[in-house]
């Protein structure tokens, strides 16, 4: 068959079959869309949890105190040296005066500040946020090795516990998505099997007139692909609406949670949904039709 005309035929036939068997195909689309939606919502929530964990993690800062001999100008300049180090996200300079003010405020009054203002025992310090928490120990060690630094304070144990928690959360998330994807495959496979069963007579007629398995399969695969793409589109739109207008407004009341902006990930979700839809529709149709081709 001429390739262009056969491709046109299969696309046209697939679209036409979709329309003609609209009850069954709509059922397939809805089932697949529902599965994608559940997976999508779960992924968004999972990403929110990860973002929240990351933000909490970022609050684990390293505080360094400079040696007493470091004067004001050198202390401020030291910030540039710190910024050039690996794994440093940001540095905030806290001068001796600011340090004393914070200290006295924490203890509840200006008296302490006034008492020690002329003979300030507080050192210049920096609050450091790291880029990658898993490398915090290396960063701490590098800081300790610097002569101008008198002391380094880093909650390594807290960071380790936090990293472990994030790894467990990631593992659970990936496992749940995999399980949901498998459940989706089974549910959709059954729906497509019903659709194919209803059309077994049509397949038998095609075989009788001399159609090859490839020809029959192509027709059903195109249809499966259309079902997959449509289901992915429906799920995508519903995910956007549910996430933006229901989930985020409701969960925003819990101030601890940080939300991934849909606008920042829309293209990734769209691509993943469409590819997964195409894959599910085509692969499941391929295996479902197999048993009806043995005539």
């Amino acid at each position: 068959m001429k390739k262009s005309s056969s491709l046109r035929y299969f696309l046209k036939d697939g679209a036409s079959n979709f329309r003609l068997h609209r009850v069954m195909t709509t059922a397939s689309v809805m089932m697949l869309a529902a599965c994608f939606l559940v997976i999508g919502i779960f992924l968004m929530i999972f990403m929110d949890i990860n973002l929240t964990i990351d933000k909490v993690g970022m609050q684990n800062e390293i505080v360094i105190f400079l040696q007493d001999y470091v004067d004001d100008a050198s202390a401020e300049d030291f910030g540039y040296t710190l910024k050039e180090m690996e794994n440093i996200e940001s540095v905030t300079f806290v001068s001796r005066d600011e340090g004393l003010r914070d200290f006295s405020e924490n203890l509840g009054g200006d008296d302490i500040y006034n008492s020690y203002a002329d003979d300030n025992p507080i050192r210049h310090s920096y609050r450091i946020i790291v880029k990658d928490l898993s490398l915090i120990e290396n960063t701490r060690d590098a800081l300790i090795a610097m002569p101008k630094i008198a002391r380094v304070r880093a909650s390594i144990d807290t960071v380790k516990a936090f990293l472990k928690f994030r790894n467990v959360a990631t593992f659970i998330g990936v496992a749940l998505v995999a399980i949901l994807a498998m459940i989706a495959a089974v549910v959709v496979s059954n729906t497509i099997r019903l659709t194919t069963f209803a059309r077994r007579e049509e397949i038998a007629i095609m075989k009788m007139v001399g159609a090859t398995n490839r020809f029959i399969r192509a027709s059903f695969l195109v249809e499966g692909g259309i079902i997959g793409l449509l289901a992915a589109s429906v799920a995508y739109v519903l995910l956007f609406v549910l996430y933006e207008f229901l989930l985020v407004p409701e969960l925003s009341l819990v101030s601890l949670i940080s939300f991934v902006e849909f606008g920042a990930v829309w293209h990734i979700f769209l691509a993943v949904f469409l590819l997964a839809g195409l894959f599910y529709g085509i692969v499941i149709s391929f295996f479902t039709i197999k048993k009806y081709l043995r005539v």
Partner: protein
Amino acid sequence: MIELTGVSKTYNGYIKALRSVDLRVEDGEFVFIVGPSGAGKSTLLKILTAEIEPTDGAAFVNGYSLVGLKAADKPLLRRTMGVVFQDFRLIDKKTVFENIALAIRVTGAGNREIRDKVNSVLNIVGLAHKSKRKPAELSGGEQQRVAIARALVNSPKLIIADEPTGNLDPERTQETMRLFNQINRMGTTVVVITHEKSIVNDMAKRVVYLENGCILRDGTGGYNQ
């Protein structure tokens, strides 16, 4: 051409549907295969269309050996023949044109060739004006003519019709048999499987009488010869 030599078919190891059948149908012949229910007619049809394989014997149709026929060759064999069934076996959701076009599209024909050939066979069966109708919008006789047109569209060497008039009234029956006769005069081998005595007796053609899986009679002269 059909050539069966000592063809037997046994189901489940003990149900003997065909017993050492010898049958030769030359190109251009018109043959009725008749017999009561359970005679083995349907089994014979399934063997000829490569739906099942004989248990014993040798069978050839249009140059293809039906014993050990590869799955990939079955479509090629089926394109050399047209099959017409009692229940028409049309796809309800497709139009008359699309139903017929399907048989030629599977061969890899382009759109222009498909259009020309489908229109040509629609003219032969007298349904050119109903090409856009769906099967459900046609009478039984018209549906059977669509099935015949579909069987004809690839210009097959052989047409096999299984009880083609079973669902038709006497007038439509005569019309359908006239059409088969016309197709046969155009050079196509026609094998009609039926148990209707009247249509066999109306046409002076070769009759193969099958009973209990055996050919009891083979010759011209009507159902009972």
